[in-house]
């Protein structure tokens, strides 16, 4: 039975049900009487009990420091003083309904707010859809307040398909506050919103829950020089919350290496950090038939006589598109004949890239940019390309490498990290992304040598392919294991 508490008496009963389940509070008990019963039942000040009292009475997730202060107040001056302080503080506030959950909470806040599919949102949606929906509670943080609520119909519609939504637990209305306590908390996203990462930090440190996160990468710290301004600091705050998680499931071995390195950095703070495991991301390309491929070729006005080189990725410094174009121009100047199609949206700091593209087009180079491409167009591009190039400076996974190879199309990619893991022995040619000449040399081979190209295309068949079913099942085992041992 779900207990939802709105009045003070109801909230105190909610607290009692968690801290002293054998002690029934009477509905006639006032706050002092309820406190007396709790104390008589042997309830003492711990960080968990102080968190619960504050979160339930406030109807919000407190700051980590506030929990510590509450615990001290309780220990020195008694539970009654803490309860009176919270009731005074809440006197003028609207009081939302509060529910304490010991279940499996899946935090899909960003996914519930955006219709776009970034790599992260794809992971969240594909995984959640494959979990036993009757056993999880989809939750989101409020937009600006430190409160967790059951996902609303709107949020749910963005996270799940209609059929899945029907199978899931009842939707919330957004005004019911969920307080995780001895729960399992799953974060399949990254949180760099202040109230959310601070709230998650409190849940991780003080709610007695087990927490599992998907670890995408630590690029904002390990490659801060090419991260958007403000992102390294925000990401460091997210990591400070992740430090109290129990498990991080990294999306590649390279991402796991980043999280392991970060975990070791926590030693100075005396924190063990989460266990780091790996579940490699699945990827798939849809079937596109010859007519779609031809239509794409026509739409983009591609000369059928020229081999096409495809580069997919948003326009931001980390993707290193300028070095790729530098390599292309070196080859064009040497008389190489090929057309380039670049698919990806503007991200940040793309002025240099835009200027370079304009300059090359002015010189008459066969260069086409596609800013909003559907999945089908991307897949068609891989199919019509002689090869693709993806020489990013750092990736947690490197989906364009995987998708190119899954299309049977060889790829020139960076000789390290997840890109190397995907490409080596599976139809990839490795280059040094920091040296345009190295990229150009690799491209030269694939442009000139048909036999080598064919050999690499044949190698792509050896690419190991996990499915979303496998991936979701692996994560679920981790989550369930956590739930069982909590």
């Amino acid at each position, binding site marked *: 039975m779900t207990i939802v508490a709105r009045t003070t008496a109801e909230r105190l009963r909610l607290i009692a049900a968690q801290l002293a389940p054998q002690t029934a509070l009477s509905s006639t008990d006032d706050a002092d009487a309820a406190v007396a019963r709790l104390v008589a039942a042997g309830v003492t000040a711990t960080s968990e009990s102080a968190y619960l009292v504050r979160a339930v009475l406030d109807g919000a997730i407190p700051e980590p*420091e506030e929990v510590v202060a509450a615990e001290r107040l309780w220990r020195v001056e008694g539970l009654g003083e803490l309860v009176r302080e919270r009731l005074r503080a809440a006197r003028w506030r609207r009081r939302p309904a509060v529910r304490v959950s010991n279940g499996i909470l899946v935090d899909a806040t960003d996914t519930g707010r955006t219709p776009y599919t970034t790599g992260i949102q794809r992971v969240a949606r594909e995984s959640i859809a494959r979990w036993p929906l009757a056993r999880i509670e989809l939750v989101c943080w409020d937009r600006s307040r430190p409160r967790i609520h059951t996902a609303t119909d709107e949020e749910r519609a963005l996270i799940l398909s209609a059929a899945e939504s029907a199978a899931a637990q009842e939707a919330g209305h957004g005004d019911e506050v969920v307080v995780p306590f001895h729960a399992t908390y799953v974060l399949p996203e990254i949180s760099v919103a202040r109230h959310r990462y601070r709230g998650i930090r409190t849940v991780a440190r003080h709610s007695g829950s087990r927490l599992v996160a998907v670890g995408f990468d630590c690029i904002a*710290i390990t490659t*801060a020089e090419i991260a958007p301004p403000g992102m*390294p*600091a925000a990401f460091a705050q997210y990591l400070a919350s992740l430090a109290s998680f129990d498990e991080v499931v990294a999306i590649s071995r390279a991402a796991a290496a*980043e999280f392991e*390195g970060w975990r*070791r950095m926590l030693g*100075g703070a005396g924190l063990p950090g989460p266990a780091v495991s790996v579940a490699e991301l699945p990827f798939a390309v849809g079937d596109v038939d010859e007519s779609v491929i031809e239509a794409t070729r026509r739409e983009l006005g591609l000369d059928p006589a020229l081999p096409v080189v495809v580069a997919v990725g948003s326009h931001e410094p980390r993707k290193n598109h300028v070095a790729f174009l530098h390599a292309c121009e*070196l080859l064009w100047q040497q008389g190489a004949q090929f057309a380039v199609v670049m698919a990806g949206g503007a991200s940040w700091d793309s002025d240099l890239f835009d200027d370079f593209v304009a300059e090359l087009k002015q010189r008459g180079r066969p260069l086409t940019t596609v800013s909003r491409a559907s999945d089908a167009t991307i897949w068609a591009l891989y199919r019509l390309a002689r090869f693709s190039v993806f020489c990013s400076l750092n990736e947690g996974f490197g989906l364009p490498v995987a998708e190119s190879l899954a299309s049977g199309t060889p790829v020139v990619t960076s000789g390290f990290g997840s890109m190397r893991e995907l490409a080596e022995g599976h139809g990839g040619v490795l280059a040094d992304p920091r040296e345009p000449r190295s990229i150009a040399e690799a491209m030269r081979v694939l442009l000139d040598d048909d036999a080598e190209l064919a050999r690499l295309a044949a190698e792509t068949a050896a690419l190991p392919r996990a499915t979303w079913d496998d991936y979701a099942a692996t994560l679920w085992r981790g989550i369930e294991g956590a739930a069982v041992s909590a």
Partner: protein
Amino acid sequence: MSPAPSPTAVEAALGARLRAVATALGLPADADPPQQLAALVERVAAGSARDAWLAYTAIAATFPDRNALAAFRRAVELAPSSERVAAALAVSVDDIGRPGRATRGLELVDDPETVLVDVSFSASNDHNTGVQRVVRSFVPHWVASGRPVRLVRWSPFGGAYVDLDDRERARILAWRSGVPTTVADRAAERAERPIVVPWGARVFHPEVLQQAECAAAACLAEYSGAKVGVLGHDTIPVSSADSQPELESERFAKFLDVVKHADFVAGVSRSAADEFAGFATALSAQGLRGPRIVAVPNAVEVPAEARAAVAGEGAGDELPIVLCVGSHEPRKNQEAVLAAAEQLFAEGVRFRMVFVGGGGRQQTASFDAKVARWRTRGMAVESHRRLSDPELWSLYRRARFTVLLSLHEGFGLPVAESVSLGTPVLTSDFGSLAEVAAAGGCVTIDPRSDVQIVDAMRRMLADDELIARLRAEAAAAPERTWAQFADELWQQFTADEQETAK
């Protein structure tokens, strides 16, 4: 605003800079400047990133960052050969066009034994805590013992190293003998100095760089061929970001770009070294090996006057003093110490709790209010924001023990100083604090556990035998001088056991 330099002066300075780098790049030293420029640009077109780094530095009188270097190489490589010089100049004009740069001279430091020590902040500021104290303690030993060091700072005009002027040197080498005023410096800093360019020499960073300098310093570490060393104080701004202002985290993440391409990091404790080793491990994801990492623990030298103060006064029959020294911020955990003191007071334990340390009003206001409230309840507790050194040393002497229960430290100087003065310490049971404590004179506990703090303080207040034993341990703890630290650091940095492959 000073008037723009004349075109002749700009040309003459460029010519002089080209001559200064010609030999290093194997170009004719006596050719006229246009020929030298053309030869230099051809060298860039041939593709060596290292040569391009020096060529850019000579032309622009500025160390390039990665974007500038890539743009320079791209412009030169992709221009038709007849237009390469124009392309090279066009790309570098943004940098050379900035105030103060166009007429700079250039001195190449190509002696592989020489270490350029980047002491920018300590040389140009009168601030003297943490990192500056370390710099002003060991760098003078390097200079005095005749090590081939050259003290440099980022030019006030930005973009490259220059030598220190006399005032700046004094701030590093003779800190005690009087502090020059900042105001007088402004004029001195107007004077333009030749830029100092490492070419096969070493560079050492004992300070965390300012954010504006990180990109060029990282590019230097990656491309100039200089062997770059870093003194690793801690990684707190990214590994304990919850305790830091976001600007600090942002700046430190940019500084990690320098660390990433450095050859060597010396952690000021084993714990600090291990944090940097963790960062280095993470670099495998981007194909980098990261720096060689060693631990060179900080020294602890308490001033003679402190020892004198300690030896001089006799103990009175006042309440036992518990002393907590450190800047006031959440990471230092003073709130927990105060909470423990309150609880002990409530239990009837009587002692004098003394907090010493500055902090922002926002941090201290509620703490000081709490202290005032407990004083009215009869508890002997005080919080000093400013205290003279003699007063502080006297407190150390009279204290029964000190408390430093920080949640994260790179070294933990107050613990080491307290032990060095013979006063027992209650400190944290992990990281650098536990390392310092292992030398003796300390009790260690989990600083996140209020219960452990209360228990340990109660015991240290009650148990005279324990205190006597800790005092004896502290007295026997080995000394470590800054001269030792300086020698060890030098040896570690200059002994490349193997070529560090980047």
